[in-house]
């Protein structure tokens, strides 16, 4: 088995969750790496959409921002941002929204606004951007986030984008018809919502990771499914394509 980092396992496990015929709204950062890895490996025809209005884009390097020229040059078309949100996102034309966040709770609600009190934050985060609308308008949501006590918290400092709210049917009760978070991929495991409680539940553990590690890196008591699988380790091709992508990206971003 090839040597790999937990972060690489996370990106690769996230990429595997995507299919060739998916239409996916891509968040910048970790989601962008996972979505493009999928496109460069098993899902060459996947439709990737960024908030800047670039539809079906095929960037050769990962974008530094949603507005990178590379996204536009390799897209089928680029639409204005208001149209992006109205016709494409709210219009229900996007199957999967791929998000990251700074904080997550057990119902996969996300915080990208502040750490600490809103009026006197310890850290001011980038903000919601389009995430609140992505979280409710896409057919379903995949989330990619590295685990840690500060990011996997019992109670969010601020709810920017809803997941399964307070569990059970609380999301549907708000009038939201989409599924919400169906997958949470971390550097340690893969979580899916329990069919009844909607609590994010470990369904697959990455090779070499223990249940204790998953618990130690979370701020709530972790639920494990009755049957927990072991995530297949990265293949040498997955690792090669991912590392090439990051190397190309670093070279391009360091260029003056």
């Amino acid at each position, binding site marked *: 088995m090839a040597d790999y980092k937990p972060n690489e396992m996370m990106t690769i496990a996230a990429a595997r969750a995507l299919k060739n015929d998916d239409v996916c709204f891509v968040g910048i950062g970790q989601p962008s790496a996972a979505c493009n890895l999928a496109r460069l490996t098993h899902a060459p025809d996947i439709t990737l959409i960024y908030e800047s209005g670039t539809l079906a884009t095929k960037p050769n390097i990962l974008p530094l921002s949603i507005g990178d*020229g590379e996204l536009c040059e390799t897209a089928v078309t680029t639409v204005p941002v208001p149209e992006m949100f109205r016709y494409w996102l709210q219009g229900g034309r996007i199957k999967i929204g791929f998000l990251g966040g700074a904080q997550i709770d057990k119902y996969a609600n996300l915080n990208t606004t502040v750490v600490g009190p809103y009026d006197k934050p310890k850290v001011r985060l980038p903000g919601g951007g389009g995430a609140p609308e992505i979280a409710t308008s896409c057919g379903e949501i995949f989330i990619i986030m590295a685990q840690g006590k500060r990011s996997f918290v019992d109670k969010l400092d601020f709810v920017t984008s809803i997941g399964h709210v307070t569990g059970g049917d609380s999301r549907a009760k708000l009038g939201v018809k989409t599924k919400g978070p169906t997958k949470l991929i971390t550097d340690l495991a893969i979580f899916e919502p329990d069919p009844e409680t909607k609590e994010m539940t470990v369904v697959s553990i990455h090779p070499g990771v223990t249940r204790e590690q998953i618990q130690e890196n979370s701020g709530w008591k972790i639920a494990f499914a009755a049957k927990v699988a072991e995530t297949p380790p990265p293949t040498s091709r997955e690792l090669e394509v991912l590392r090439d992508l990051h190397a190309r990206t670093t070279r391009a971003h360091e260029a003056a």
Partner: protein
Amino acid sequence: MANAYEAGAAGLPCAIFRGYIGGDLPKVNSKIKRVTCPFTGEQLAAIPAHRPNVAVIHAQRADRAGNVMIEGVLGVQKEAVLASKRSVVTVEEIVDELPPDRSLNAVVLPHWTVGHVVEVPGGAFPSYAQGYYPRNNGFYKEWDAIAKERDSFLAWMKTNVLDKGPDAFARYARKVQAAAE
């Protein structure tokens, strides 16, 4: 913001959309309200239209009449100009005639909707202008640290903008363009 600009461009008082459901943002922003659709009863979010005093955008080209052509990522640039009372459009070049082989939809702002057009080559720096020059990614990343604190931002602005003036920028922009060619 995209919705607010769009409503401003349309001359409507507010934007209505399906959003901010269940989250905390409406608790801290009193301008996010709920309205009920009079036809279906659906609860929707409403926010006030954005009507800036002035919009400043950058585009690739304009002709002498002031018709503005933009290609690439459009963002909310058209909406921002139409929503604002006055506007300044800086362009990479002012041309006698727009290229005849342009896309038939590339003129996004006809001249009577634009306040002022100013030729500012390199005007998108440190970002890019599609078809003209790439973004300076190194500086783009450095900017995060400069802009993080008000003091470092003001100090940078004083040294590089206020104490130098437009001539220094023009010289710099020529260098950026030459490097891209």
